[in-house]
């Protein structure tokens, strides 16, 4: 089977973000960027399915300007076979991303699409589900285990009370949770090899998707700061403070 893995270029998860002083957004100038951690897990899962002989080809796609080719190359170095950059410099919300991905799915007809469950910048947790809706495919979100057998994919999902397993008819959409796997590191030879793997650039405008968002960000502000607390000397003082000062225990 063919697996399509959409990946997103996002701020590195360790970076402490700064809100711009004009409240127009978050300052990404010179910020370290990386492949979104959940997307990395999606790539790893696809590569493992290939190594198990279940998948023949892993195609990665990223939507964004030229800079996101860096993340596509990273995915290729991890073992994906070829890349597609859907070129746009517009900021898109999940629905537009899902619509563009639906077009890529139409062209590539992968039997499985594996996405991250959310990107750590917008924290939307929407794209996979929207793509499933637009392509009329079943979805297995927040996957911590994926087993492909007998024309179906069994997905164990992380839900609020524990775990749930569902069986989806292929073709299907899966989104990854953190515990699905431990992504590998790209070795230097693989990084070199990745440079020669095919990477197609397709202008987003060619897909005929309406790219204007109906949601406008009015402002972005820093979160309210907690005021600095105090250190207590021992357990007795802690319990006393919680009872008599904070009054949160009785």
């Amino acid at each position, binding site marked *: 089977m063919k697996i399509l893995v959409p990946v997103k270029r996002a701020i590195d*998860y360790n970076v*402490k973000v700064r809100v711009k002083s004009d409240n127009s957004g978050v300052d990404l100038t010179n910020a370290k960027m990386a492949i979104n951690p959940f997307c990395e897990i999606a790539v790893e899962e696809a590569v493992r399915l290939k190594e198990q002989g279940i998948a023949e080809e892993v195609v990665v796609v990223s939507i964004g300007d030229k800079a996101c080719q860096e993340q596509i190359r990273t995915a290729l170095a991890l073992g994906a076979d070829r890349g597609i950059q859907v070129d746009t410099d517009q900021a898109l919300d999940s*629905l537009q991303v899902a619509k563009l991905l639906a077009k890529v799915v139409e062209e590539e007809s992968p039997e499985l699409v594996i996405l991250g469950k959310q990107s750590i910048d917008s924290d939307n947790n929407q794209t996979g589900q929207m793509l499933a809706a637009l392509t009329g495919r079943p979805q297995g*979100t927040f996957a911590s285990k994926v087993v492909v057998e007998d024309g179906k994919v069994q997905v164990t999902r992380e*839900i609020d009370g524990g775990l749930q397993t569902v069986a989806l*008819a292929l073709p299907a959409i899966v989104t990854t949770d953190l515990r699905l796997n431990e992504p590998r590191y790209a070795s230097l030879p693989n990084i070199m090899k990745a440079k020669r793997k095919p990477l197609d650039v397709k202008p987003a405008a060619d897909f005929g998707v309406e790219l204007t968002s109906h*949601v406008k*960000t009015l402002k972005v502000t820093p979160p309210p700061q907690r005021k*600095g607390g105090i*250190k207590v000397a021992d357990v007795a003082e802690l319990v006393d403070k919680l009872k008599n000062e904070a009054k949160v225990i009785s």
Partner: protein
Amino acid sequence: MSILVFAEHDNTELKPETAKVVHAASQMGDDIHILVAGENCAAVADSAATISGVSKVLVADNGVYKHQLAENIADLVVEMAEGYSHIVAAATTTGKNFMPRVAALLDVAQISDIIGVESDDTFVRPIYAGNAIATVQSADAVKVITVRAASFDAAASEGSAEVASVDVVKDADKSEFVSESLTESERPELTAAEVVISGGRGMQNGENFALLEGIADKLGAAIGASRAAVDAGFVPNDMQVGQTGKIVAPQLYIAVGISGAIQHLAGMKDSKIIVAINKDEEAPIFQVADYGLVGDLFDVLPELEKSL
């Protein structure tokens, strides 16, 4: 215009998130209907009818909705969507699962995990793991919204809405429920608890989480964990508090052996009082803690249990 709120439940019990979502919805408009989709869920519908501000409870009771498979629930909600200006659900794993599907089928954007309502079209939500707060305005005809329950008080339960059954059966027949394994616990649910005590990597192993149990019992607290503790296999993942786990905002949050990474803080920094117990006095958790105690948790926890 009316608002459709999706009820969070397990077929026998209505979850506390629902009353909080109704409270959030009441800031968007005033004719609130609740949709209860499940199997043999009459009791859930009855308790939904008592939530103040709800004018109607719609019950879709059918086997196809039992496990709330996203494909079937989304088709049901889309079928019911006409006439509603807002469709709202809790940002639980259920709501996060089917709501974007609803939004895409209606061809509208979704606003995820809102923590505030400014008007019927303007909402406040955290981005970048809670390190920035965005105010967004939606021009879509139908607003599809998930609500961070921890950010809203529960609506009172003095209502008596009419209950009507909905005869819509949607079976997409592309997915099926296989099994589930739920974590058994006598303690309050993490997201609803007034007090939460969480352990991190500093707990060293799963057995040591027993040190938190005595304290949790005395305080009526739920037990949570950091991602490090979950990844190390100390405790199951549904106990994880953070950007990718559960978001809690209890009266009291006690972080034990947790350093306080950005991703963990995203899940608990709106708690009223934060206590940190950590032997590393440089741990970032102390920067957000109201009360910090530098010490070895293996000494501190037994002493704390005794003194409560």
